């Protein structure tokens, strides 16, 4: 992100960049940055809080007046981690032996996903162009040895991840995002499928499969689950 500040400002466009990692910005030294302490993925700080987001925006844009570059302004407000007061209970006992397959699990989540769309008025599913059933079959086939091109697989996985996380946002007692991610990776057929897919991709002769398997499949925070016994996919 800091690189873009250099590229655009050199071409005559004044820039201000939000920085999520101060140490990176200190190395890249873009012309102007507003450093925020928010979680990666949340550059404006708090969802559904327009006044908070407006304050971040305003502070950033006001720094455009300064020319003492490279400039890093430290944003004064912070966001506390969401408290998990409820504990997440999954109302349909996903990931238990009663559910026979990934595709069946996907099907069982459909009603929750529909509720989530109704609640949010939108969905972020729709990168791959596949239905969720098709995406599930693609992954089941990949596990059975038929690895599709890495990009096709990645887009299907991104869509399914969004589908699961959006569906679970309307479970009773859904809890904070962290609890839903723990559920996704630790308790679902989908999470188990990702963990089972990782060594297959890493061992593939295809360079793009290797990138997917080693870098862009399992988040750094979930890699501890690899190589451990888990529910079968």
């Amino acid at each position, binding site marked *: 992100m800091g690189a873009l500040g250099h590229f655009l400002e050199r071409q005559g*466009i004044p820039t201000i960049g939000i920085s999520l990692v101060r140490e990176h910005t200190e190395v890249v030294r873009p012309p102007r940055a507003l450093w925020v302490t928010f979680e990666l993925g949340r550059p*404006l700080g708090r969802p559904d809080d327009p006044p908070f987001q407006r304050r971040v925006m305003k502070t950033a844009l006001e720094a455009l007046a300064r020319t003492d570059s490279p400039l890093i302004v430290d944003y004064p407000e912070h966001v506390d981690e969401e408290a998990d007061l409820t504990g997440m209970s999954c109302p349909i006992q996903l990931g238990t032996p009663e559910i026979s397959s990934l595709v069946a699990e996907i099907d069982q989540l459909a009603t929750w996903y529909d509720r989530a769309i109704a609640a949010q008025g939108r969905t972020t599913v729709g990168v791959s162009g596949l239905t969720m059933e098709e995406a599930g079959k693609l992954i089941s086939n990949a596990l059975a040895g038929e690895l599709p091109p890495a990009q096709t697989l990645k887009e299907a996985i991104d869509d399914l991840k969004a589908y699961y*996380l959006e569906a679970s946002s309307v479970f009773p007692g859904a809890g904070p995002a962290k609890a839903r991610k723990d559920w996704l990776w630790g308790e679902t057929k989908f999470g188990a499928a990702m963990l089972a897919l990782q060594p297959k991709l890493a061992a593939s002769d295809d360079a793009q499969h290797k990138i997917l398997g080693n870098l862009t499949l399992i988040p750094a925070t979930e890699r501890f689950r690899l190589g451990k016994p888990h529910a079968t996919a």
Partner: protein
Amino acid sequence: MVRRLSEMPEVEANHLRKIECPRYDDTPALSGKPLIERRVVIISTAGLHRRGDRAFRPGDGSYRVIPAETPASELVMSHISVNFDRTGFQQDANLVFPIDRLRELVADGTVGSMATVHYSFMGAFPPAAAEPHAEHLAGLLKADKVDAALLVPV
């Protein structure tokens, strides 16, 4: 909550430490008009695009266009990284792409105006791959009379 790398959970901090940052000669910050007279564009690096647009791929330094009137329901994300939260974006697109906040700042007179078109790159680009696209984009921004870019990471 100050989130220096030294204060983050080890696994997260180690991942971030491994990312290689490019180094450049310092670029002087340009002076400009007061904010109330500026025309602002949002440039995200969250790998955002409209549903149906080409998804981002590893090594992709290009950008996608997001017209200002694009409804949030049309936005999807195909960033290649799995090491950031996406549930916030699922809940509220403005958390990542604050187009409605910019519209409000224009309406209340804080900002002069907003660009007709906004943009997203995918932040895991190799900088050399993005540079020609960014330089080309600068010309398009000038044609849209933009004189301030808000760069929003993910």
